[in-house]
């Protein structure tokens, strides 16, 4: 059970959050015309590393803001400050 720091609310229990998967996976820009490979990459492909992972969390039972952070998938240790946006990739 992680203790996740929300940039707006401070450290809060994991159960207040909803995991949003990998951070920094940009959606196609409006009016862009992505190829099938590009759209498939956005929809279905994620990096799934063993080690540092940049991921998004939504403080769904708090301020409802999206944050992103880096967490080790081995130890679950949170390795970075939380950033107040979902598009962060350090």
């Amino acid at each position, binding site marked *: *059970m*992680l*203790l996740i720091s929300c940039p707006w609310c401070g450290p809060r*229990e*994991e159960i207040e959050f*909803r995991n*949003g998967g990998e951070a920094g996976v*940009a*959606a*196609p820009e*409006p*009016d*862009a*015309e*992505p190829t*099938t490979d*590009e*759209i*498939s990459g*956005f*929809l279905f492909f994620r990096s799934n590393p063993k080690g540092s992972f940049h991921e*998004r969390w*939504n403080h*769904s039972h708090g301020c*409802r*803001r*999206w944050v992103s952070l880096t967490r080790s998938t*081995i*130890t*679950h*240790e*949170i390795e970075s400050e939380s950033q107040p*946006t*979902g*598009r962060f990739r350090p």
Partner: protein
Amino acid sequence: MSGWRLAHGGLIDRSRPVFFTFDGRRLAGFSGDTVASALLANGVDVVARSIKLGRPRGIVAAGTEEPNALIAVEPGLALRRATEVELVDGLAVRSVSGRAPAPAIDETPSEHVWHHADVVVVGAGAAGLTAAQDAVAAGGRVVLLEGGHAAGPLPDGLVDAADFVFLPRTVAVGRFDSNMIVAHERRRGTPGANTAARDRLWHIRARDVVLATGAVERPLVFADNDRPGIMLAGSVGVYLQRYGVAAGRRAVVFTANDSAYVVARDLQAAGVDVVAIVDTRVRPGPTADAGGIEVLSGHVVAGTTGDEGLASVLIVPRDGDADRASPTVVEADLLAVSGGWDPALRLLAHTGARLRYQPSAGTYGVTEVPPRVRITGLAADVNGGVGAFSTLDPVWLVPAPDGSLDRHFVDLQRDATAADIRRAVDAGMRSPEHVKRFTTIGTGNDQGRTSGTNELGVLAALLGTTLEQLGPTTFRTPLVPIPMRVLGGPYRGELFDPVRTTPIHGSHVAAGALFENVGQWKRAWAYPREGESFDDAVLRECRAVREGVGIMDVSTLGKIDVQGPDAGAFVDRVYTNRFSTLKVGSSRYGLMLRADGMVFDDGTATRLADDHFHLTTTTGGAAAVLDWLEEWLQTEWPDLRVRLTSVTDEWAGVAIAGPKSRELLARLAPNLDVSAEAFPFMTVRNEYLSELPARIFRISFSGELSYEVYVKSWYGRALWDAIAAAGADLDVTPYGTEAMHVLRAEKGYVIVGQETDGTVTAADLGLDWMLSKRKWFIGLGALDRPHLTRPDRRQLVGLLPDDPDLHVPEGSALLPSGGLGTAGNVTSSYRSAALGRTFALGLLAGGRARIGSRVDAQVAGWRVPLDIVEPVLWDPQNERRDG
């Protein structure tokens, strides 16, 4: 009958005798006893019969590691360990042999507590108390957890310390990420406690955790090592010191380390005849002070005899086969054994720490601890092989004179022996995880406290490998069993899931409505009259809407307020069709897709001002849609100047539907021009309705002339009752969600979540006309994927059974007419008053091209032929919506 109470000593209160029953026998103990110590004091040897072999078993240990002495506590028969149940007057317990009786459903209240601490100390032994004192002296919030009840008085400095919480009878059952300790507190019997909640589940966030969790002694594996009277040496010492109970009258101590010597001396001092200390080692360690008791060094106990309890012990030299055939036989009723110690560090393993065999300590331990965790006291000494614990010479298996292994018990609770491990090895198993599952060793409710390391030792011996090569099996939470009701806490009954009711709910109840659950909402399902069946009520309600006027509570529809200069651009991106050109005061039906192009939600959007839209969503999808829109706004388009607010609960709504709805509305809102020209379809008006300020939408989900009237939620019931009163002479009829479903299906309107399941596209539903070709929207880029453009995709069709009275159940499979294979399924199926027959909607492979042909449905094992028709069965030209 070998155990007895000493005349003096122990932490029990001898001035307060306590009476209890064990299997119906009335017995006496003292305040401060556990059931186990009282049973020993009363000379009860046999506390259970073993699960598979029915062998007599006695008390082995004094704590959570006890494998044999399981008891069922009356009333309710909750399964507990006798070593952990505090003796209270009137307690009634039964022994548990083999399988425990199913406990009764326990309604005992429990609660969940969330707490934050600078330091959590687990274990209130000497080391734990010292650690707590140090932490309190350093300042900060300190919590001290103690699983037992018989801890001594708190030392000075802790009694009155501020920000210090002492929780006795509280077992730390798990350590989770970010140093969260979860602990189960049993409050039953706590003097002076408010017993409203007899259990608490604590969730404690700690900056630092100190594990003063002690260690668990290992038995030794030899023939007939399971007889009552064979106990762990350290536990024999605990009964002596803490409870003033001697576990026997004539004892032998059998050890592989120095720690049991002090027990032998204490027994001797208490008046027990200690015949000998049998030490596996040729040279006992430097702390082995026998105090004059005979020491048989380099010897082992190779077997025991006895009927119900222990009668004698067979002692042979450890090495040299010559004397094995003629062992020394020593009469004894107590054999105190110590094969070594394992540090109680399972809490570390919960978060992934690996325990490995430490040859210098003769146990599985850790060489480094996670950040912000410290091990202290006995746990640290055993882990590090310090002092008496450096003198270990592990003996994993003492051979029997006849070479057999089938009475060498490894797991007493599971009745599993060294022979079982050999069978596993003979079957080709090498991994401890496999051997565990094959032999069941370690799978009892003691979770292999006393058997796990011995299992690995025996396995290593049989495989001819070393323990360094064998890792322990995985330790999982909870550390000790805790009742499911404690995990559930107060979240049961009506607190399990919130119930949402609309402001109009009372009127539905008064009208005798049946309700259905839609998400957390209770929605009026139908309003059967006295003596009327549900089906007949639905037909009557449908007829009223088609022929007269009906009213429905639509307050549960999700409502999202969208405001900001870029509101139009935002709404254009999230719906498939265009909204930025919508005139103020007008509404439009809209469809939302997920990014993969599948239908996500539908609803209407109404433009209330240039920079202000009012969105409606499905009842069940309201929260998900708001989350979805927020996600895009925050993470992809932070440049858009838009804010979203859920206003679902702010507005109560009533749909007025049917040919007579205009007349009814005109009566209620005399200032409103209700003519089709002045108040056209898909527009909104703000007007007083029966003196209530209202937002009135001309909108239809039934195909009939229809309005939806919204007022602030606190006016909801007044609105409903005013409409019902004003329409009494029009026979205004409340209709429920079932009639609403029938009416919309007759019109071929889909329900997201009923006609769709996350794999259905707009084109599959025949809604491709809603996909704008002149603007971008979420999901657009995914629509060209090859799988989404196949002609044999399942498409929405209408279905008419040949038998007009046959109702095809929703979910029925569709099969090619006369052929094999599944071609689709029925998504909606109803009896229709307007059509005078049953009808259905379904998703059918290549369905649109098959309209006019036939398909079969599988109903209760029979094929039922159906005509494939257009999905819009009622008023396909939309001639009725203007009245």
